[in-house]
């Protein structure tokens, strides 16, 4: 792991106030629950370096909102210049964000949104649009697969999480008007490979004629591939697979023809975040919502893109 603590020579004792002309940034990450998240963390840690003029304080909330709130409070107490974080949940940030506002520390949201009414609590939100991702998948399915009636099974993300809700929503919005698309089963695979496989095995036992799998992320799609192969069918051919994320293993499977279509959800937010902070620091303004550029790949595009992918 190159993104460990070892290579960052930050002297913790100089945490407060101004240390030279470095910009103090406190970043609170959700956790490290997936490969996507690891890439996201790495991108941020690799960009906000001393060489680039940042002094990054990073903390991992272990998927707990209370830890994140605590970390943000601690950043306020330490007096950082900027706070950035990927909220675990959408709701419940008003109180701590108000504190940050009172302390005059600008807050930047990455990857996930908050649902505060008061938009002045944060400067900007940079990240993908989950509903849009689901929609793009749905549209591709409409155009490429659902030209005849198909049975779709859905592998949902963690119950109640924003990406799971939005990606389901987007897909349903896009395929609502298409009578050929029939979602015959939908279960949570918790965004993990193992559960993706388990649930897919169950689907295969219960339904003999599945045509398409819609997985909310690549990991569950990869798990589903294992299950389909174990049942003696060919993923990508007998049963088509579409998913979201575009992590390396997913792209590889796409290139190998086991997945049919992937909408990317770009984890490399580091450079964008650095740009925003630099802009703000020099007195500029930024848009309140910055949607990252997400590609979409079919099998041919994946073969082309694979050699140059960073993650």
């Amino acid at each position: 792991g190159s993104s460990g603590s070892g290579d960052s020579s930050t002297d913790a004792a100089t945490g407060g106030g101004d240390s030279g002309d470095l910009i103090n940034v406190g970043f609170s990450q959700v956790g490290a629950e997936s490969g996507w998240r690891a890439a996201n963390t790495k991108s941020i840690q690799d960009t906000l370096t001393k060489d680039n003029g940042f002094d990054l304080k990073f903390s991992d909330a272990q998927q707990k909102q209370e830890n994140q709130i605590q970390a943000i409070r601690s950043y306020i107490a330490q007096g950082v210049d900027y706070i950035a974080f990927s909220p675990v949940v959408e709701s419940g940030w008003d109180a701590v964000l108000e504190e940050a506002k009172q302390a005059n520390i600008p807050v930047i949201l990455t990857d996930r949104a908050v649902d505060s009414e008061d938009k002045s609590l944060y400067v900007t939100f940079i990240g993908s649009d989950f509903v849009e991702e689901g929609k793009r998948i749905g549209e591709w399915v409409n155009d490429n697969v659902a030209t005849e009636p198909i049975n779709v099974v859905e592998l949902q993300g963690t119950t109640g999480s924003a990406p799971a809700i939005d990606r389901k929503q987007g897909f349903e919005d896009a395929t609502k008007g298409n009578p050929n698309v029939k979602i015959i089963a939908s279960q949570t695979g918790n965004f993990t490979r193992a559960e993706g496989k388990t649930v897919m095995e169950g689907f295969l036992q219960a339904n003999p004629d599945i045509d398409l799998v819609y997985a909310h992320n690549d990991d569950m799609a990869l798990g589903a591939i294992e299950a389909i192969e174990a049942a003696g069918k060919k993923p990508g051919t007998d049963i088509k697979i579409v998913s979201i994320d575009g992590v390396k293993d997913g792209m590889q499977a796409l290139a190998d023809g086991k997945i049919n279509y992937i909408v990317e959800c770009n984890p490399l937010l580091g450079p964008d975040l650095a740009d925003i902070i630099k802009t703000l620091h020099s007195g500029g303004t930024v848009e309140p919502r910055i949607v990252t550029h997400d590609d979409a790949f079919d099998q041919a595009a994946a073969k082309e893109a694979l050699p140059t992918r960073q993650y």
Partner: protein
Amino acid sequence: MATDQLTPTRPAGTATAQKTPRWRLDARYQPVLGTVVVLAVMLAVGGSRYENFLTGRVMANILINNSFLVVLAVGMTFVILTGGIDLSVGAVVALSGCISAWMFTHGWSAGITIPVCVLVGTLIGLIVGVMVHVFEIQPFIATLAAMFLARGLCYLVAPESIPITDPTIVKLSQTRWGTDDGLVITPSGVIALAVVAVAFVVLHYTRFGRTVYAIGGSEQSARLMGLPVARTKVLVYVISGTCAGLGGLLFAIFSRSGYSLTGVGMELDAIAAVVIGGTLLTGGSGFVLGSVLGVVVLGLIQTIITFQGTLSSWWTKIVIGALLLVFVVLQRLLVLRRR
């Protein structure tokens, strides 16, 4: 023999036990003392390593950020003192939060919502108590089932996170009393401290409290001694459930939202706090104030990690584990040495 003068002389035929010298600390307080000592060491180390560490604001934040955990740990102390365990508290926190958020969005007033979400915890505690006492299901399993149950109800009530905009809750979450340099206390903190105070009195100065300890010492003896074992056993789960309901309310105030996935693993934090505070999981020995210290220790570990600020996700986990290890081993060694 030279030792003669040291041996107390007593008339033959009197059964005496050796009296412990006054200056010796009662053995029961030793684990708590261990916690205090190691806590002081951690503060000293943290203060020397990090700037702004030993400030009022940071210390106040520990209570502000953990007021719900204090309440959970207090409830858990009751259960653990009887030799039981309550795994459902994390899920009950989520359920209570979800229900309060749901009620607020459906136009209920705070005057009704707040009691309801505390009572939800009471009700779950009562169900657990009945399962444990009447049906003799082991606490671990009864509370595990209650945990699934509460979590399942969460998904039904609030499949996605719901913000709370009720003015009372907003007010509660924004109020700060204290000095300008950050040494402040929130209403939640006051509630948590009040719960601690009440629990302290109940455990140490009421018959119910003493029965809790007696059951932890030996349930069979307590029953043969004619103590109200049944009532007490059900009550401790009701108390723990109520504390969890209240904890859920405090968490709702803390985060101003209800979300079905909050509090995953929070029961382990509560248990860890209680045990670090010197309470034996076998029951019968421990103090509610120790549990509060346990929460402070966990909060301090988190604080140290954020102050370090350079730990990657995995080093965070490893460091938490290592600090926990250092803590329990040191505490244990202190206790052993004093014996």
